[in-house]
């Protein structure tokens, strides 16, 4: 079952590229079927294991015999399940949304090809147990995303895509360099094996060097300040569904997931790395929100908030306490829901009014009630207003900060939360409330499929808080937290699970 996560989107991308040109609906149908089946697959992977223990299942690619370092492995553990569900949930909804939204672009099938490639890359990053494969999948996803950012092929999109591609390639090269050095040091590419070898060999300067390379490389993919500068150009320029994918899941899968996987499970986190991450997280949190509050471009504002919210996730994770990791992962899930909803809202506004400038819109609530109400819910979620989902994860993160005796970071988190609220008040005020502008009298609500997607996401925002109720937590978040908590024991868990 495990390779299906890569095989399905990859083969669908291939089929669409063959016949998409001739049958107009191929892309719509196949892409939606594929993403839906991936969602079902990832949810069914949850129920397939026992609750409580760290359960890991390993798949040998190509059925190679022997033990690491021989062969390529795919690993499914609690964290991977959690990430797969988050990713495929968002991508299934985004695919549904694209049916109507992408009508205004030519050669829609190419969009679906790239979309499926990106999905294949991200799924691959999550389930792979091999360093080099991680890099390959990461590049598949990144390159697809460069192309998708440029999909509009206007000057602005091309410039953004160029910046993104350059900076992304630089970070990829550093990651590759890091992987190469790690290979030369441990003579293995299997993550679990590397972890075991490193534990045996002990810490040395080369590991520190590799750590920095990875911190910068994945930090750039995750858009941590000061490696964030590509994001505010790239995310707004992409078509709205892709913005939702980029901000909602791509930076998390390529950035945060890879970062935590490598540092927690493979290299092992030391005190210094954790403090560094904590600092970078807090810095992103504050810098992102300050930049966001001055923006008048709806999507750019959202993009800066992604930087800020990523900061929360990293802050939570880098506390490395059970509560902190729980808060970080929970916030990751919540953020992917409400941020993709917000980008889809902005897409709906662009679809109907043709502008992203907040000053040019006003009073859209009258004409676009579904968009307005769902975006209100999403804004409340990101601002951390109870009872919406963002509140719970922020609460847990701040609790974890206090518990870990990091009062200063807790304070910054609170300040960031206030400013987030302020900037979303601005969005709500200028875009949706107030008197409707004269030029916008003819605006219509978006088509049904787009509305449906926004409503589904807003319902998740509304009831997302239930995830921390023990019954859900046991199945969904707890296994992921446990994997990170056992740290380098991951090696034993994986090596022990090899059939």
């Amino acid at each position, binding site marked *: 079952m495990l390779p299906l996560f890569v095989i399905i989107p990859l083969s669908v991308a291939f089929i669409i590229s063959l016949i998409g040109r001739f049958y107009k609906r191929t892309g719509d149908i196949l892409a939606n079927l594929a993403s839906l089946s991936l969602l079902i697959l990832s949810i069914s992977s949850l129920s397939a294991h026992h609750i409580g223990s760290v359960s890991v299942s390993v798949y040998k690619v190509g059925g190679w015999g022997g033990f690491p370092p021989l062969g390529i492995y795919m690993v499914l553990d609690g964290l991977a399940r959690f990430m797969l569900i988050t990713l495929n949930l968002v991508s299934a909804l985004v695919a549904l949304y694209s049916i109507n939204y992408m009508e205004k672009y030519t050669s829609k099938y190419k969009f679906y090809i790239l979309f499926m490639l990106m999905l294949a890359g991200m799924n691959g990053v999550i389930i792979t147990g091999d360093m080099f494969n991680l890099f390959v999948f990461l590049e598949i996803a990144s390159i697809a995303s460069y192309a998708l950012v440029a999909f509009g092929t206007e000057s602005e999109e091309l410039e953004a895509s160029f*910046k993104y591609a350059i900076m992304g390639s630089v970070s990829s090269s550093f990651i590759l360099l890091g992987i190469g050095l790690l290979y030369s040091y441990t003579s293995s590419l299997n993550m679990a094996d590397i972890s075991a070898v490193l534990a045996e060999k002990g810490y040395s300067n080369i590991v520190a060097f590799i750590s920095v390379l990875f911190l910068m490389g994945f930090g750039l993919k995750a858009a941590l300040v*000061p490696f964030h500068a590509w994001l*505010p150009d790239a995310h707004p320029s992409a078509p709205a569904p892709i913005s939702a994918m980029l901000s909602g899941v791509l930076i998390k899968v390529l950035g945060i997931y890879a970062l935590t996987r490598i540092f927690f499970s493979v290299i092992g986190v030391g005190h210094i790395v954790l403090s560094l991450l904590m600092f970078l997280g807090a810095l992103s949190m504050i810098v992102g929100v300050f930049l966001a509050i001055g923006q008048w471009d709806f999507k750019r504002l959202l993009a800066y908030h992604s930087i800020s919210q990523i900061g929360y996730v990293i802050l939570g994770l880098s506390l490395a306490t059970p509560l902190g990791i729980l808060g970080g992962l929970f916030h990751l899930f919540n953020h992917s829901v409400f941020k993709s909803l917000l980008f889809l809202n902005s897409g709906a506004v662009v679809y109907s009014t043709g502008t992203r400038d907040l000053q040019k819109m006003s009073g859209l609530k009258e004409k676009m009630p579904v968009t307005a109400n769902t975006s209100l819910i999403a804004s409340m979620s990101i601002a951390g207003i109870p009872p919406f989902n963002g509140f719970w994860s922020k609460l847990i993160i701040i609790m974890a900060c206090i518990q870990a005796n990091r009062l200063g970071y807790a304070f910054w988190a609170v300040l960031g939360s206030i400013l987030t609220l302020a900037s979303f008040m601005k969005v709500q005020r200028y875009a949706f409330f107030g008197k409707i502008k004269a030029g916008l009298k003819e605006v219509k609500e978006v088509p049904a499929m787009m509305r449906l997607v926004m409503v589904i996401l807003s319902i998740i925002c509304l009831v997302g808080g239930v995830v921390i109720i023990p019954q859900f937590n046991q199945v969904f978040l707890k296994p992921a937290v446990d994997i990170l908590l056992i740290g380098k024991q991951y090696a034993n868990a994986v090596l022990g699970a090899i059939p």
Partner: protein
Amino acid sequence: MNFDFSHMFRFDYLNSFIALTIVLFSILVIVYSLGFMRGRRRLFEYYFWIILTSIASVGVVLANNLFLLLILWGFLGFTLYVLINIGGKDSDRAAKKTFIIVGGSDSLMLLGIVIIYYLTGTSQIDKIHLTLDGSQLAILAFLCLAVASFAKAGAMPFHSWIPDCAESAPLPVVAFLPASLDKLLGIYLLARICLDVFVLNQVMNMFLMLIGAFTIVAAVMMALVQHNLKRLLGYHAVSQVGYMVLGIGTGIPIGIAGGIFHMLNNAVYKCCLFLTGGNIEYKTKTSQLEQLGGLAKLMPITYMSCLIASFAISGVPPFNGFVSKWMIYQGLIGQLGDGNLQLTLVRSVTILCLVAAMIGSALTLASFMKLIHAVFLGQYPENAASSERKINEVRPAMWIPMIFLAGICILFGVFAYQIPLRLLILPSLTPNFSLPFSEFLGFWSPGLATGLILTGLIVGVIIFKLGKLRLSLREDSPFIGGESSVLKESRVSGVEFYNTIREINILNKIYRLAEEKWFDIYDLCQRIFFKVTDFLRYLHNGVLPTYMVWCLLGMIVMFFIMR
């Protein structure tokens, strides 16, 4: 994350009576809205949020779990935001400002509550008794919660949303939330944290008293120069909070009882005042004082209610506002008389607060004289009167709640001890303080005083009537050499007179700064934060090599750290 769900709510005298009051106000406001909001759009939404608000408010006051309190409290900010947005012109701006201040303070409250949870290991409110001495964290937690309660109730410096909100939001919403419900909740929280959750020390009490005194005077000074009826009432809503904070800040039983009683009274008369304001606006379509006048004849019920409520808020005996203010003064005086407090600093602060409270009371009276004169007495402006339709009394659904509240003003004033104090206020304090309350009202006995006042009034009326009979006046229109007899110049709108206050030299400067919003924490923070934003945007110049340099610099620093 194992919260104990078994002790979610508690019931004691304090929160039960506040919960009852909340329910009462909800009913009154819904009745009023049936009249006021008739014919508007999105009514279902409006009632839905009003009812949800009252349910959540009852939840807040009855909650015994800090996190439950936090969730419901934050949710109330959201309902307030939605309700303000239902309103008319500029309501989007007011709603934004309101929610940034209220929601922002909720975030601080979150921090405070988490710190308390961390310090005590429990989230059950009735089990927490933290001392402030020697613990920085406890002080921080207290301040965070105090900020939340200040922002909700509208004490300075977190007050600035109230006047804006009062001006722009739909009137029943103003009468419901900022005027009554938010006061009840904010002061409830303050009372709860001052009495139960924390054990305050002298410094913190002084701090609260100073905030209270400052709020009283500053807000009432702003109220004096307002030209908009609703905005004026909004500033008074801020000013009155000062008394409550001052009362609770005294830290001695009678002061605290006074503060809580004042909270109840304020909710009653302030709600009543806003409802009268709503009636006036409903009929005349304006709330600018210059464009009003002479409504006493046309809207007698509104006039009487407004008059009673104005007397009550100004602290004129025998209305309820007087009793609670008197109790607060007694609290302050009692503190002066306390043998332990011989520190000169403490004494001078107390005297300062006492003076401020009294000045505030006098100025409140002054500004309500202005209001009564400008709205109900004087003449209705010519140009407006000719164009508008005939102004008459509002429909019953709109005056019944008003009359009811005015009645309570009198009832709670005349029978202050028999009804509200004995049944509601004093029992709510008994677990913390048990004092012989029989003597605490000093030499003020409202029943006797009312009798005397009434006698005086009746005698006055009789003398007036007799005098009128004897004099036999002749009324005639003035003759001014054949000119038109309409005397526009002779119309005193009730606004100009108070401009004198602005022209006093120092005050002039202060008012100018206030109008430029230098004292508004919202605008102040906005200025500071936008400076930071501008700097950061200046750094983000969009040049790719710059960004690459940041990445490399970041790497270098990290290499240095990881070395």
